[in-house]
């Protein structure tokens, strides 16, 4: 989004943030009510099957049993606990919680951008990218729990930006317990907690949106700085919270919890068709198990990309997290549409720093990405609903989808205006002064 051509910091009344938030809220309430109507009157349900799984698990928990008695419940017991009121008040309680988290994400996006002094207009447009995204408002209202994870991730970013290290560490430990994938953010967060840039208990100086150049010093590697006080604290607190949550869950629900909520996600290889390029390869080899070497080889591209992104972009923390999430999903063994929301919530945070214009480069990226998905879905429809053997074509469609993801990722990298999250501290002796325009 270009900064040079904007008008003075004013937005028309109809586009004010408050109006946006209120209309988004009303839309979600309407969709939840509509969803209830559709569920009881039509053959095809509005509500996601996962929501039924969570609700069943929650009512099992409410009657003192293990939520894992419900087949395909593969989440933390905390989620079932959160949904216990489904059986007490109303079955839509969970949907309201998820939609509220979705609105919270919108609020956090605005706060994060405001802290970095992004203009009102650019801020509002960025928030609209989240709140008015059809995928976003259907996911919470259909009963999917991903908005809660997104809200937690953004809260962690916000806490770091305000210098609340313990708070950030606590929520990080909790979110990794809740959903394993945020573990990929551990390395960039640790790297960004450089004691030259971040000191706990103090509000760190943030690089503003208006800063044209950043003033990062040339890095000299010192082993001592690798184990700074902040890094150790973050590691200990988040690790402690993660272990404590798992220990309590294990105490109540034993091995079932370990297998269903943790190990399943780490070892999941699903031969059923999905967007991943690996699905057909896994299906064709399903009769025999993969050897350790084979598993390692298939993990190498994912691992290499994650490391490359972290070491190139960790200072620009939010951008790094966005790229890592897109790459993580694209190279994963299983890809389902709900994973996309993991990076949709970070996209509005990087848009103000992108030199990519909507016309025509932005539109091209959107069309290519959505087009590749639609192409895959058409072959998927032929297989699942027409019963035609199109496994090969479907697999090729997933290769095309990976190509589209790679293209969009590379374009975003090329068009990004690199901007570290934290600026240098202004020290009392006048060294390390932050450069501003």
């Amino acid at each position, binding site marked *: 989004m270009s900064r040079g051509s904007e008008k003075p910091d004013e937005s028309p009344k109809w586009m004010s943030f408050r109006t946006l938030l209120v209309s988004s809220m009303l839309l979600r309430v309407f969709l939840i009510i509509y969803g209830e109507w559709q569920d009881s009157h039509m053959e095809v349900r509005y509500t996601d099957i996962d929501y039924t799984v969570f609700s069943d698990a929650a009512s099992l928990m409410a009657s003192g049993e293990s939520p894992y008695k419900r*087949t395909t419940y593969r989440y933390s017991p905390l989620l079932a606990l959160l949904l216990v009121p489904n059986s007490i008040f109303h079955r839509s309680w969970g949907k309201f919680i998820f939609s509220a988290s979705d609105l919270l994400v919108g609020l956090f996006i605005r706060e994060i951008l405001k802290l970095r002094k992004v203009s009102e207009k650019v801020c509002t447009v960025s928030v609209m990218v989240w709140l008015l995204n059809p995928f976003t408002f259907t996911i919470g209202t259909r009963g999917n729990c991903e908005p809660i994870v997104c809200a937690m991730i953004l809260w962690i970013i916000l806490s770091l930006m305000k210098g609340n290290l313990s708070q950030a560490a606590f929520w990080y430990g909790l979110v990794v317990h809740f959903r394993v994938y945020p573990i990929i953010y551990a390395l960039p967060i640790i790297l960004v907690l450089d004691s030259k840039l971040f000191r706990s208990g103090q509000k760190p100086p943030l690089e503003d949106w208006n800063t044209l150049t950043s003033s990062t010093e040339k890095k000299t590697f010192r082993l001592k700085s690798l184990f700074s006080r902040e890094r150790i604290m973050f590691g200990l607190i988040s690790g402690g919270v993660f272990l404590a949550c798992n220990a309590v869950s294990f105490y109540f629900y034993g091995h079932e919890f370990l297998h269903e909520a943790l190990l399943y996600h780490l070892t999941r290889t699903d031969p059923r068709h999905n967007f991943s390029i690996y699905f057909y390869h896994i299906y*064709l080899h399903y009769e025999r198990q993969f050897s350790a070497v084979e598993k390692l080889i298939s993990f190498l591209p994912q691992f290499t990309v994650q490391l490359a992104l972290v070491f190139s972009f960790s200072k620009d923390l939010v951008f790094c997290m966005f790229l890592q999430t897109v790459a993580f999903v*694209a190279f994963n063994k299983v890809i389902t549409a709900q994973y996309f929301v993991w990076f949709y919530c970070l996209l509005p945070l990087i848009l103000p720093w992108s030199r990519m214009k909507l016309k025509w480069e932005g539109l091209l990226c959107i069309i290519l990405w959505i087009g590749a998905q639609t192409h895959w879905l058409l072959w998927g429809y032929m297989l699942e609903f027409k019963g035609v053997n199109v496994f090969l074509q479907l697999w090729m469609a997933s290769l095309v989808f990976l190509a589209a993801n790679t293209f969009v990722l590379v374009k975003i990298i090329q068009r990004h205006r690199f901007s570290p999250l934290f600026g240098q501290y202004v020290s009392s002796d006048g060294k390390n002064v932050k450069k501003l325009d």
Partner: protein
Amino acid sequence: MGSKRGRSVIAATFIFFSMSCLNSISTTQAGTSMLDSDTFCISDQYIMKSYFTTQSSLKESEFRNFLRLQQCSENIPYEKDVPVVAMLQHREVTGEGSHRHLLTTIKLLRQSHLHELVIVERLPLGVFADPFELQSLQQRRAFSDVSVFGDTDLEQPSFRSNRSVVEIHVEINGNGEISVELPLHARYQLIGESGYSRVEFGEPDLFLCSRHVPNQEHQQRRCLVLSVGRSKTQTRSVVWDIPAGIRSHTEYVSVITFVAAVLSAFSILVASVLSSKVESCKNTKEL
């Protein structure tokens, strides 16, 4: 609930046992019943529930043996029932794709004082019924009772799963004709050469039971075996061809998948390194 289950299990057990005895009857001709129908009594709601607590396979012989052990208690009066014959008028798999319906139309050729038809559908390997979907159908009154036993894992492919059984209870209305539509889903099949895997359906086992009285614990229910005839039009077997992976694809799919992953990873790696080099050049110029 427990007594209901109890009664149905006994009923179905009894029915199944009788059916097994009657298997020797020719099934291509309608309207013949050679044996006296034995009356079974069941105290569980579903046969298959108690069957699976002691057995693990769906072999005919094991099931027959199990049913022979289900006896009526002395307080159930013995009645010599008039044999009831059912005709399988229509049986086919309808729909397209991985989600289809097994449609079965049955006509009872004689009236009976027993008013609940129990259908025990032993599903072949390769398809499964979703218990949650069946529960919601039951709530919409498609069946008076339904349950799935055996392997109900909805996610495993067929070669990693075992067979399952669906037991359906339907109230008989006046004209004695019942149509049942059972939603089924395909599992992922063993890979092969042709690209399709054929799944064949056998005939269901049918029983007639007395209506269960709610809330009567351990009340035994009488059930009758039905001998099943096929109508003249229903002679071909019921099959479902499910798409399956092709073995000859294996080598090149694996190689190309890996090459694609490496190429993508390499592109992203190059873009990242170039981008961070550009940034550090810029910063060096500034400093």
